[in-house]
């Protein structure tokens, strides 16, 4: 597999930013159309940021506002009628905690297995002197575009005893070819070949070179594909839907689906006698906002810390698609 004409965007963003003509330290005369363009660009950017941010912000404020005020539209920018009733009910719900526990177990173990399997394979496939790599890589990449499909998968898992078995969350997705290609491209382009020569002279074999030199130099790519894998596990709804019947094994997303979309908020206390339908609906909504926050917050909190690695990871993956 080769990809025609894309070149590695090796120039750092910083350098370009410094040299781009309209940056302020380069004094150049600006004409009227530049000002118009400026205003247009800023207006669009602000609009985009608002469109992306507002729904998320609304969930935050709605989760701690009086639902009566939310549903009649008076909650717009700041929370009103501050209440934490929704969160209290969410934290009382055992289903959510079971789901949470399961998801954490599946995500952590799954991501560890992902990295342990993917990184060495990516390293091996990045060694130019290893001739079989082309065939192996082709066989791997082919699976990205051609797959057996849902039913053969299902029957295979059934034969392997993976139905209603927690291993189904971990084993079948152990290798994502996409992540493997990203890691391979990183090893190929970002680890200088001189290091390998030096390691050989020092008597390191492939295992030693990989463990002692390559891995310590690859924290960026490990963070990126680790995060991809982790988010994949965390947000996985499909596996629980298709291969798991037992509710004790269901991960968070499947519990969320029951609460958020099938409206099964009952365990959370709606429908307890004497309340009218409107109130029930409002309590259910409050719970829904709380559930969205509780399930989504962990990922939104960790990701800005890893953001500096993203550009690199995505870029590498793209260059060597």
């Amino acid at each position: 597999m080769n990809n025609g004409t894309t070149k590695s965007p090796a120039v750092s963003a910083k350098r370009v930013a410094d040299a781009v003509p309209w940056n302020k330290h380069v004094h150049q005369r600006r004409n009227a159309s530049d000002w118009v363009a400026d205003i247009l660009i800023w207006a669009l950017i602000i609009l985009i940021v608002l469109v992306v941010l507002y729904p998320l912000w609304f969930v935050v404020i709605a989760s701690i506002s009086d639902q009566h005020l939310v549903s009649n539209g008076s909650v717009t920018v700041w929370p009103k009628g501050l209440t934490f009733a929704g969160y209290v009910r969410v934290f009382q719900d055992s289903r959510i905690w079971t789901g949470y526990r399961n998801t954490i177990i599946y995500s952590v173990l799954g991501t560890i297995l992902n990295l342990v399997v993917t990184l060495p394979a990516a390293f091996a496939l990045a060694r130019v002197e290893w001739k079989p790599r082309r065939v192996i890589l082709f066989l791997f990449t082919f699976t990205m575009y051609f797959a057996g499909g849902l039913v053969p998968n299902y029957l295979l898992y059934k034969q392997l005893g993976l139905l209603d078995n927690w291993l189904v969350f971990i084993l079948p997705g152990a290798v994502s070819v996409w992540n493997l290609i990203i890691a391979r491209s990183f090893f190929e382009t970002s680890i200088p070949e001189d290091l390998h020569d030096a390691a050989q002279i020092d008597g390191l074999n492939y295992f030693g070179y990989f463990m002692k030199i390559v891995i310590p130099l690859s924290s960026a790519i490990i963070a990126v594909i680790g995060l991809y894998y982790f988010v994949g596990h965390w947000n996985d709804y499909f596996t629980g839907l298709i291969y798991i019947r037992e509710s004790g094994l269901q991960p968070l997303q499947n519990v969320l689906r029951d609460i958020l979309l099938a409206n099964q908020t009952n365990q959370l206390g709606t429908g307890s006698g004497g309340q009218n339908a409107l109130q029930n609906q409002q309590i259910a909504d409050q719970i829904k906002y709380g559930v969205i926050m509780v399930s989504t917050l962990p990922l939104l909190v960790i990701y800005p810390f890893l953001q500096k690695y993203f550009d690199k990871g995505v870029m590498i993956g793209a260059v060597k698609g």
Partner: protein
Amino acid sequence: MAVVDINGVVDNNQVRRSWPLFKRIIWHFKHYWQLWCMAIPAMVFIAVFAYIPMYGVQLAFREFVPALGLTGGKWVGFKYFKQFFSSPMFGSTMINTFKISLGTLVFGFIAPIILALLINQLGSQKVKGFVQTITYMPHFISTVVIVAMLNIFLTPQTGIIGRFFGSQSTLDEPNAIAPVYWLSEVWQHCGWNAIIYLAALSSVDVSLYEAARMDGAGRLQLIRYVDIPTIMPTCVILLIMNMGSVLNVGFEKVWLMQNAMNMPGSEVISTYTFKIGIQSFQFSYGTAIGLFNTVINFVFLIVANEISRRVSDTSIF
């Protein structure tokens, strides 16, 4: 191997080439057994979880016999494909699938390019970083939560969007499912998909800007004549790759968006495969529908790749 000199190595390779096959194999494994050890776990996983199901697609051409598993049963040829083509669901699932996926392909392709071009125009790195951080964020939200948010926001009368759209929820409207799907996809993934174009834009040769400025180009002309040509190869590659999944409408999202009211507009091939193949145990029929889907995708990928290679000399294989 104590040879450090480049010429020495080349000579050794040539010597080895004249060895008998089995001696060469022994040499290969003696030298590379460690690389094999590192690659084999991944190879085993791919073989079991990708190639065995691929081998199992022959079920589409056979009767399913539970005792015989994936490959048992009598050969029936194209019976199940004919059954699908002549079923009343064929037309509507195909139309729905194409509608949802083509819109996603078009909007999901254009929007990140525009966003990247816009972000690239921002002078300050801080503002750039801020806008990127904000626009990436929805990418990490799960499908379940996205669909739940759609549901809540589109609720008639009380939802922040739904209150402007009359008494019927937009999600209950079969014709509205596709646009809701496209827009929410763009909302969720636009920022993330823009990263790759931003990376490509950061490699623009600065002298090009300067030269264009000298020739009197304004900012919009710089975008038109410098930025867009720079990201063109990246755009083409991504377009080809997206073409390969033109019928791969995200199963999860459509499945979660489905309800009894919108079903005429929301039944797509993947959800239909699930209902036929898993929920109603018609394994062979379900496999056939799934295989049909895969083959169409593959054809699209190959065609897009060929066209692009002829037209722009860019291809993924």
